[in-house]
Structures are given as C-alpha cells and as structure tokens.
C-alpha cells in the first residue's frame, strides 16, 4: 500500500513539473523551429548578422520554442564558446537606460565589474556601440539579443536601442542577431521609418493549426501520460545536457532548473496501468465533449496546460486516478460565470437594489442613475412588500456602496462630476440582464416576492 501511495505522489509531482518546467522540449512547428535554429546557428558559427521577429498569440509557445532551440544549441561547444546571449524583457527593462545596463553586464564588457555597470546612460551607449564597432565578423563572438515583449521596446524614447541594434546588425561590425518576441501582429507598424528600414523583415509566425481537435486530444494524452523506458531513452538523446559554462549569464534564467524525467522513478507496472487509464479517458465520449467545448473557446496550449495542472493537483491516495467526473467538473468550472457567483453571495437588500437598477436600465434603456433614483424605485416596492419595510436610508446607502466596491456598478465617466455628493453621483450598471436573472433564479434563500419583483417592474 505505501508503494501505491508513493506512486501517486510521484506521478503528481512528475506531471506537475513537466507541465510547468519542461521548457526545453517543444513539439510541432517544425519549419518555424528549423528557421530559428538555422538563424541562431548561422549567427554563432558563420558570424552572420540577422534580425527577426517571432510573432504569435499569447500562450502558443514562442518563448518555449526559443528556449528549446537554445537548449539544443547550447549543448554544442562550437556554439556556446562563440556566442553571448543577452536576454532583455520589455516588462523588466522599461527604458533604454536599464536595457543598456543589463546588456552591458550580460556581455561582460570592460565597464562592467561583477555585474555592476559604471558610467552614465550616454557613456554606456557610446561604450557599447564602440565595443560592437571594434568587433569584426571573423574574430569576435556573436551576440544574440533576445528581446521579449518586443512591442514595449518600441515605446522607448526615440527607439534608440532598437535603432542601434538593428543598425549594428546591418553594418560590418561584431556579428549580432536580434530576435524579437511579441504577441502583437502589427508590431512592425510601431517601428519608426528608419528603424523599420534597418529591420530585415524576417517575420516568423507561430499560429495554432486550424480546427485541429485531434491535435488537442493528442496533446491531452501526451501531457498526462508517463514515459516508458523507451521514451526516456529518446528524451535523453534529444535533450543533451548543457554545460554550466554555457549558462553563466545570470539574467538568462529560462534554461535553469529544467525538467528532468530521470529524477522520478516509477515501476513499469504502474506506468503501463496509468497510461492505459489515460488512453481510456481520451476515448471516453464525455471527456471528449468537455475537451471539445474547451477547445471551442481556446485553442492555445499555454492556458490548456494550466487547466491540466488544476486537474493533476487533485490527485492523492484517495483519488489515485483522473476520473471522468473530475474532468467534467473542470469543464463546468471553466464555463461558469464568476459574476453570477459573486451576485449569489449578496444580501437580499443588495439584491433588491440590483433588481431596482435592472428595472431602471430596462425602462430608460441603460441610462445612468444615481442613488436617489434607485432608492425611490426600491422604496416604492419595499413599502408594498411584507419583508423589506422600514429599512433606513443609511443602510441602503451602505449596501449601494458595497455594490460599488464589488464593481457591479461604476461611476459614469465624466471627470468634473467627482465633486458631486455621493448620493447624486451617476453610475452605470455593469451587469447584463441575463446575469441578474440567473443569479436570482439560483439564489436559494431569496424571498419569493423578490424573485417575483425581478420578473416584472410593475409594483
């Protein structure tokens, strides 16, 4: 029995770490991967200067692709001895000053001592450019610039960094490769004319396959299955180990703590049993329905991995297998409306106010309202109702403010109105009628008269 417990725990840990940290393997997109691979290889080994953009929606695997290419290349001595990787991220290096300091430190230039860079911004830029100019194609190391969130670099002042990087790539200086990664498809239009002219217009698009549900089923299977001994051997041969020397860059952390299946051991019997179970799941019609509905929403791999992570997280000794029910529950959660859930947690008074707002919007075609209007509408009904009589104004105001804090209502934008007293500030309802109706239907302890009032605005 303790053995079985161990197996489940191991499986869970294995699957989780594979879902999260397996950045060095990438499947599909052979042509695009080869393209990037050749580009980087030619830069490092033939001293060619290049620039390229990798484009694709968020979660399609742009970073993973680059990381997996680098994992393959960095294992080769001819590559890592002849190249420097400079990793810049538009969200971290928010202006050229920071980006330059980081680049200088990562290239370990003369004005950087132990990762600290000296001199002003202007000096750093001048020095970096001088260094690159002093280099030449045949003798100096190639520098690979990875610019993640490339679109943010376009908003820097004058686009100085981009201009200079692209300019170096297009002149006889040290060989560099500028690889931008972004989700914006129209990023080229953000570039200034002279920057655009210097960019080589190599755009590599990473787009998911059209209408490929079978691919999704395969992905589901491959992400949840445990590897057999044969597959492990294949993994070893396709994932050569990267020498420490090649990873000395402290900023480039993507290849640290990579997933290694050899850290986990399973009995071959358990593996066979688990895999058989997963195969059965994939063939199950109900599972397929859930997966199809998820696929209809989102075809990307990244978000799907996160959903599977949730599924795997539930495994323990009492529940050693992924069941059809848990997948269905996942599907239900995926499709459920969070705002309706939030509405269902409101008090009856707050719900009444929401209903009053709904009636107001219906009658006046979504005109904004203030507290007084809602109070009047609520008061009319409350006076005739049996349970809501005699609620005092401050209590209602408090409820109104609670609704505002939950952002069911928001101030109608109009800057000058902020000095108006809070009872007279105008608001808009941020809910659809359908959502309110659903919440009223599902709320269990709501008095009947309230749900009746929801049906019709006549009092």
């Amino acid at each position, binding site marked *: 029995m303790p053995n079985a417990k161990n197996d489940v725990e191991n499986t869970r840990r294995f699957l989780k770490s594979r879902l999260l940290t397996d950045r060095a393997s990438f499947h599909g997109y052979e042509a695009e991967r080869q393209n990037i691979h050749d580009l980087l290889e030619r830069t490092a080994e033939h001293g060619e*200067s290049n620039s390229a953009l990798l484009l694709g929606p968020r979660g399609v695997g742009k970073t993973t692709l680059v990381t997996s290419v680098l994992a393959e290349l960095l294992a080769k001595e001819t590559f890592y001895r002849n190249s420097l990787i400079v990793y810049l991220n538009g969200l971290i290096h928010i202006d050229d000053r920071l980006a330059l300091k980081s680049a200088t430190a990562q290239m370990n230039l003369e004005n950087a001592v132990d990762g600290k860079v000296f001199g002003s911004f202007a*000096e750093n830029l001048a020095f970096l450019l001088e260094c690159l100019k002093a280099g030449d194609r045949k003798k100096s190391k190639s520098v690979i610039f990875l610019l993640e969130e490339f679109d943010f670099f376009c908003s820097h002042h004058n686009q100085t960094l981009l201009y200079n990087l692209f*300019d170096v790539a297009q002149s*006889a200086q040290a060989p560099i490769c500028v690889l931008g990664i972004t989700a914006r498809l129209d990023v080229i239009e953000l570039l200034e004319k002279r920057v655009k002219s210097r960019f080589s217009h190599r755009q590599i*698009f990473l787009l998911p396959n059209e209408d490929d549900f079978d691919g999704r089923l395969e992905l589901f299977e491959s992400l949840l299955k445990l590897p057999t001994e044969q597959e492990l051997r294949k993994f070893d041969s396709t994932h050569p180990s990267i020498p420490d020397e090649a990873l000395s860059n402290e900023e480039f952390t993507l290849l640290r703590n990579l997933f290694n299946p050899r850290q986990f051991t399973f009995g071959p019997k358990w593996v066979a049993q688990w895999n058989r179970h997963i195969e059965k799941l994939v063939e199950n019609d109900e599972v397929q329905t859930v997966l199809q509905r998820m696929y209809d*929403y989102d075809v990307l791999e990244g978000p799907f991995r996160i959903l599977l992570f949730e599924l795997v997280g539930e495994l323990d000794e009492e529940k050693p297998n992924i069941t059809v029910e848990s997948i269905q529950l996942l599907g239900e959660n995926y499709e459920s409306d969070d705002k309706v859930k939030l509405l269902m947690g409101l008090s009856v008074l707050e719900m009444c106010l929401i209903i009053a707002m709904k009636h107001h919007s219906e009658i006046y075609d979504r005109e904004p309202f203030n507290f007084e209007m809602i109070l009047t509408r609520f008061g009319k009904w409350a006076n005739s109702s049996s349970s809501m009589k005699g609620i005092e104004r401050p209590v209602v105001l408090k409820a109104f403010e609670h609704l505002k804090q939950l952002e069911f209502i928001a101030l109608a934008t109009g800057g000058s109105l902020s000095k108006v007293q809070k009872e007279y500030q105008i608001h808009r309802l941020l809910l659809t009628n359908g959502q309110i109706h659903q919440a009223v239907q599902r709320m269990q302890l709501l008095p009947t008269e309230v749900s009746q009032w929801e049906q019709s605005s006549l009092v």
Partner: protein
Amino acid sequence: SALQPAGTPKRNIQLSNIIEECSNGRRVSRLLELSPKKPQPEQMEEPKTPKRSTRPSLGTTGSSATKSTPKSASKMKLIRDGTIKPTIHARSAPLGDGANELALARERLHVSATPSSLPCREKEYEEIYNFLEGKIFDGVGGCMYISGVPGTGKTATTTAVIRALRHLSEEEHIPKFDFIDINGMRLTEPRQAYVHIHRQLTGKTLAWEQAYNLLNKRFTTKAPRRTTTVLLVDELDILCNKRQDVVYNILNWPTLATAQLIVVTIANTMDLPERLLMGKISSRLGLTRLTFQPYNFRQLQEIVMARLAGMSSFNSDAVQLVARKVAAVSGDARRALDICRRATELADDQARQTGEQVTVSMTHVQQALTEMITSAKVRTIRSSSRMEQLFLQAVTAEVTRTGIEECNFLGVYSQLEALAAFSGVSVPNPGRAMGICARLTASRILICEGGRNDIFQKILLNISTDDVHFALQASKLL
C-alpha cells in the same frame, strides 16, 4: 593572504550587506575560491554561501574583481581617458571562409557588405565629391543637406566620398583633413553631440558643458596650422530639440572663418529645414542640398546584380521580380537585399534536403516575398478558436448594424448571443466573452479599451470587415 582585508568587512551580518551580496553573487564565489582557508567566524554563514559556491565564476581575470570599488573607479577613469580600448570577447578560433557558393552569395548580399563603388549613385557621388573637394582645397567652411527616404544610399555614398578623399589626402593630392561622424540616433540626448565630437577629436570623454566650451574655443580662435574638419551629422532631426541650440551651434561654426569646418547633414525628410528648424538655422544650413530619390526597379536590379557579379547562383528573372516588388513599395535597397538573402537561405534548405546543387529561382524568391511582405492577419483569424471567430463575426455584424466603426461590448455581446443561437452553440457568458475580446486585442485583431470599463468598453476592428468575411468563409460555425 593579502586579499583578506578587502573581503572581510563585508562579512558582518547586516541587511544591506546581505542584499548586496545576493544581488552580486559572483563576487562572493570568487572570494571563496581565492581564500579557501577562511577564519572561524565566517563558518556561521554556511547556509548562505554553499549555494553560491556551486556557481561557476565568469572567465575574467581573478584579481580584477577582488577590490571592486577602487578598481572599477580607476577603470572608468581609464575608459574616459581613452586608455582602455573598447573590445568585445573574441571567438575561440577565427572563422574560415565558407566554401559553398550560396553561402558566398549570401555573404555578398548582406546589407553590411557595402561595395567600394555604389552603383546608380554616380551623380550624387559626383556632387558630394565636388562639394567636399572644393571646400577642402579652399580651406573654407560650409554646409550641405542631404535628404531621402531610408535605404536609398545616403550614408553609404557620403562615407564612400570621404573614403576616397582620405585616400587622396594620404597621397598628398589634396590637403589633409579630419573626419568626424555623429549620428543623432546614437545619442541619448542632443547635447551629447558635443561629447562625441570632442571624443573623436581628442579621444577623451568629458561632460557636455566642458566639451562644448573646448569645441567653441577650438572653432572660434585662430590657429596658424589648422586643418579642415569634415563633420558628418546623420539623423539630423533627432538633434533638434525645442531650443535647437545644438543644431544652431553645429551649423554656426562653419560660418566662422577660423573654424574651417565642413558640415554634411543627413536626414529623411526633404523639407526638414523649413518645417522643423528656426529661420536663422535654416538660413545657416544654406541651399546646397541634395535629394536621393528612391531606387526604381532597374536600379535595384543593378544593385543586386553588381553584388552577385561573377556568380551563377541567382536566376536573373528572380532578381527582377524582387526589384519590381520592392520598387513598387518603397525603393529601399536594404529590403531588396534582405529578400534576396532570404531566398538564398530557402534555396540552401532545398539543397540540403535534396543533396544537389540549387540555384535561386523564381519559386524561392516568391516564397521569400510572401514571407517578408504579407501580414498574417487572415491566417491568425483562421487559426483562432471558434468562439473567437464568432466574436469577430459579432463585431462585424454590430459595425454593419450601427454603421459606426466603434462599437461597445454590450452591443457586440447581444449580437454574439444571436449568432450563437443561430449556429446552435452555447453562448459564452459575458466574462468569457470579455476574455476572448482581450485575447483578440493582445494580437491586435481588435483594438479595445482597458478592462475597467467592463461591459461598456469600446471595441474597434483593426482589420477590414472584408478580411474577416474572407477569413471566415471556410469556418464550420458560420
């Protein structure tokens, strides 16, 4: 050992020190390597240090890192004095020449491989040459303004002229002259121009005020044996700030008889002096101007063929196709060369697969052109999920209904409900629909406001409705 005192003060446990050491792990590791026998008190910090010690130290000389502060300060001083020459790390072994013909073609087609004489720019070359040669001969100052869209050979021609003049002056056919070049885009702010000019004259880096004073002194005072200075200012428009003092000074010095300064300015727009510069500055810039026209297809073809002279790996029709396509869009020589280079790569791939010699043909060029000119918006829509497609359809429906480009989420959502009912799928709830909207915005198929406005956010289609219809023709849902 002697290195000990430098390291020990850092060891007392204070928050500031710990932070510093953690952010700067390399120094700790090096200290550990250099002093393997530590005195006892340092043992207390075992939990922190072992982590660091496993990390390899970078291959700089060990001694330079030990006394980091004084060393770096003196180093910075040496850099500012120009004693330390900027270098980049060298390869383990220098590269040999590639034997492959396609690789050779690719190397020659690289934008950086500027030929010694630029084809199709003979007239402009002549003009700049005459201007500069005349000014250098006469020992007077002057200005010239060169304009043209990017990639038309402005900087390449000018530097080629200067290279030729240098050659002549070395052989003592014309007087000696200094050459300085600055580029507006390589400066962090306009005033850094003084620093760069001064550095190229003396090799020292100063603050801009000092550099300005020294330059002013140099150009305004008379010196008996002054040589002519040629100053090339690239990207002139970046040097223009509100006060325009930098541009004024750079263009004012040539007017002084003492300066013997010839300024050649390069920018993109033809009417920059009138549009951006103050009256007194455009007056100083003078009327010696030269405009580089975009290349037409014949010229582009000639440029590419000149680079490929003596090679048989390129089909000449293929070059013509590139030239015509590029000339129709921008007349940018860089673009034509890049497309040709990409075509050689594609041919190379094919050669590798089939294992036989391949020349770059029409198909390769066609493929390279589609890769580098087309946008992938239609493909993106086709590859997006069904709900996203439905949402886009709803947006176009709402645009058609209201007749206004801009629509709000609420309207789109009600269209979405109708469309979903029509095609028999379950309606995504508003939260999910908003997620879809955000995803489409992230790849800029749609443009929309931030999420704070919730169901009142405005949505704008970033592509034409025709494109959406075209992309969704094959979709199963509609």
